[in-house]
């Protein structure tokens, strides 16, 4: 209760429950098969509900899951049992709307996979290690989409060679020990 609001995972599944992109921030599902089992359970239980106009909500294994569907894409955000449901819903909405902006309204599985880099960057900008970074979809989308060349950055050739020199030195030291 005293802790910071936290997100346990964000899932983007297709209409058969297969992964488009997922990100886990909690150790509750240590293995890939545990993750898949959770995704399957969540997907089957929510599949038949109508979460197309408003986000819906359900509980699974002491977790709260908020979810929203569009076309053949299913968006999920999971949080702990005592988490504020409305905070989770806001994270979901931020993710959902940002994806909508990034895919220019063409939100379906094909488009999402063709722009998977944007989806992954989007996830990266919303939550960091379970802590909410940003929930405003416009901000998220603009952070992801800023694709211009950076004129200010110098060529980093030198950086790399310096780094390799340091590394070699370190390697030698470790081996001599």
């Amino acid at each position, binding site marked *: *209760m*005293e*802790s*910071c*609001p936290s997100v346990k995972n964000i899932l983007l599944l297709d209409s058969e429950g297969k*992964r488009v*992109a*997922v990100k886990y921030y909690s150790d509750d599902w240590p293995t*890939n098969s545990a993750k898949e089992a959770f995704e399957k359970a969540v997907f089957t239980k929510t599949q038949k*509900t*109508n979460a197309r106009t*408003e*986000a*819906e*909500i*359900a*509980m699974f294994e002491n977790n709260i899951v*908020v979810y929203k569907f569009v076309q053949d894409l299913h968006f999920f955000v999971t949080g702990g049992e005592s988490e*504020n*449901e*409305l*905070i989770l*819903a*806001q994270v979901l909405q931020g993710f959902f709307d940002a994806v909508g902006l990034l895919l220019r309204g063409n939100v379906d*599985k*094909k488009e999402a*996979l*063709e722009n*998977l*880099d944007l989806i*992954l*960057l989007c996830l*990266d900008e919303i939550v*960091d*290690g379970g*802590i*909410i*970074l*940003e*929930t405003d979809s416009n901000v998220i989308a603009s*952070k992801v989409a800023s*694709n*211009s*060349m*950076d004129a*200010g*950055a110098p*060529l*980093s*050739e030198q*950086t*790399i060679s310096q*780094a*390799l020199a*340091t*590394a070699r030195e*370190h*390697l030698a030291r*470790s*081996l001599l020990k």
Partner: protein
Amino acid sequence: MAQPLVKKDDDRDDEADYHPFLGIEKGAVLQEARVFNDPQLDARRCSQVITKLLYLLNQGESFTKIEATEVFFAVTKLFQSRDIGLRRMVYLMIKELSPSADEVQIGTDISYIASNIKVIIVTSSLMKDMNSKTDMYRANAIRVLCRITDGTLLTQIERYLKQAIVDKNPVVASAALVSGIHLLQTNPEIVKRWSNEVQEAVQSRAALVQFHALALLHQIRQNDRLAVSKLVTSLTRGTVRSPLAQCLLIRYTSQVIRESGGNTQTGDRPFYDYLESCLRHKAEMVIFEAAKAITELSGVTNRELTPAITVLQLFLSSSKPVLRFAAVRTLNKVAMTHPMAVTNCNIDMESLISDPNRSIATLAITTLLKTGNESSVDRLMKQITNFMSDIADEFKIVVVEAIRSLCLKFPLKYRSLMNFLSNILREEGGFEYKKAIVDSIVILISDIPDAKESGLLHLCEFIEDCEFTYLSTQILHFLGIEGPKTSDPSKYIRYIYNRVHLENATVRASAVSTLAKFGALVDSLKPRIFILLRRCLFDSDDEVRDRATLYLNTLGGDGSVVETDNDVKDFLFGSLDVPLVNLETSLKNYEPSEEPFDINSVPKEIKSQPLAEKKAPGKKQPGLGASPSGPASTVDAYDKLLSSIPEFSNFGRLFKSSPPVELTEAETEYAVNVVKHIFDSHVVFQYNCTNTIPEQLLENVTVVVDASEAEDFSEVASKPLRSLPYDTPGQTFVAFEKPEGVPAVGKFSNMLRFIVKEVDPSTGEAEEDGVEDEYQLEDLEVVAADYMLKVPVSNFRNAWESMDPESEQVDEYGLGPRESLTEAVSAVINLLGMQPCEMDYYSGHDYGKGSEVVPNNSRSHTCLLSGVYIGNVKLLVRLSFGMDSSREVAMKLAVRSDDVNVSSAIHDIVASG
């Protein structure tokens, strides 16, 4: 585009199914990753390859260490490109592949060096980015860097991070703050040095920076109550901009409220005004957080609750399912402790029964069941019936449990509720659901006498067509107990005997037992029961035949119809008064001989641990209970040990052995603990001693006990320990005589006396001459609880009712102000040393839970205890606790036992404790 060669076996449209990663394969992608090494980098191409790699990782594909390392090195080359999109992908990739902090710290070999090199290479590139003019680079570089860094590297970049925290760009500041929150777990001492910068960031005008800064600042100070309290005081007066930060502040405020313990007498709770003002915030998230915080305040009053309930009620009619769910879930919790406060929402709740979200509907129904009044029951049941058909089993179970409590609350309404239960019992459903229904019917039958006959018939009809063996046997057992007491027992016989024909062996055996119980209690049915039992003698299963034979013999089925004597009734209906584990152990240890197995030889005490090891005979059990951390020794083992000592052999049967009590502080020269062995007219103290000094050998170790504060005890024997070498535990004993059967109490002071000899550490040989020395031990008390055995009863209510009501003694006690009910309950349990039993349906709620568990926030509680007092006197105790607003706890204690004197002895214990 080439068509895939493999023909698909379904007729789905290939075009629609196509996606860019269809059929990609790890090996091929790793090959493609060679483009990272091209002298002329194609940023677009590289981005695509990284995306493919990330896709593979995301699908659960794993890279071997070598693969990961190769990709990692290749990716670091991409820092040369100035393409911002590619750089972003590089950051992502590094985060996915980064060696975790553990790997860096633990690894010792090549992987250690490799991962260190990785970190060094990538660190210098990232540090460059961190100081870049592009904010996007800086923010991301900070996040990546903090993910892969370890303590030493962190000190190098600390200066930049501190700057970043107060950076004017909110994205950079947030990145540094969030990284700080993560780093606090691994490098707290470094992050704690950033307090000033974080403090400054709390004042930031950027909403999320404030949120992240507040979270970090609180975590830095979380162990300093005063600092947290100050933080909350200043912020609740100031302006907190973002709703998320506001939610955080509400959580911290409730923490401060909880820790301050509501110390004002007037009932004005500190910070309550702040929480209440948050109910008028413009963000729903904050309103809800505040409402939830208010409902969870410990000992919340109705006046405090009202504004919170009012906003939650508004949420109930929101168009957003999430909002409705959050509100109804919170109200449902409130209804458990303050049902009256929620009744105002009943109309809104009723409309939620038809909510398309079944979780919301179930929560609404169960809330209504908790808050409803007697007149609304019938209408409610009608609504629920329609609802039940379209929800999942897990929701149905919740509803069934709520109906059970409702029925116990309004026993007059049993007819409609029982009908409802029997209707749903006939419908489809899984085991857990059916079990919940059957349990509920059983509880209602036991609790509401009028409901008995109809309830039993419902159960009979159910077993006619029941697919669950477990439930059938449970019901048959229950029929055997309740059926014979009804007005017309004969009508159940048909249902029971049908089982003998139609079911599997387990159910058949159970039906045979039930028939026997009818035979034992209803004399008029006896001849017919005998006929039925005789038929069972030809059953194909041996257990069924054995049971039939046994019952025919015990009931006198040889033709003569006699009164069933009490022994037989005891045998058939009495509960087994020994723990099954103990019985199993004793049976395993029993060697077939002329002497029959005696059930009285089975110990009744439940052990903290089941008998783990059976030592071979003759082999001495080393370190019996001597090491305080070792496994708790069992009663059996103690019994053997004590009876092997001639001085104690005539003390009779060991009644109880206490768990070891430490008489020395941890890590002193000599570690001593004591086990109190209680006999009928003796008490033996077993001192388990350990010598922790390698240079010493102790000889002739005794404990000198001063019993001047224990008048009823007189020392009769002392058995010294001849030699106590280093780190080999040994025991010395002192025995006392006390009046027979009397639970004498007293305080004993102890002095360890011994001869100490120096040991040469090189040879391990001790010197010839020793010096006499003493070592003061802590005092030891024999208390009333030492005379109590923790013996559980399987069904508290049955046991309670079978005891003589004449023996009952009731009194009330004031326990003074207490921290919580939990504390009061455990204090009384410890004082009496009795076994807490499971909640029974007598207590209405929480059936089946341990009665020593006090639900959160509850202001009254019933606790059930059982035990056997010295002299083998069974006794049961019901404790009812109540707490008022000033935390004064009052307790009503009712005790029944086989011996009135013991009942009053219990009251004496409590009165003097």
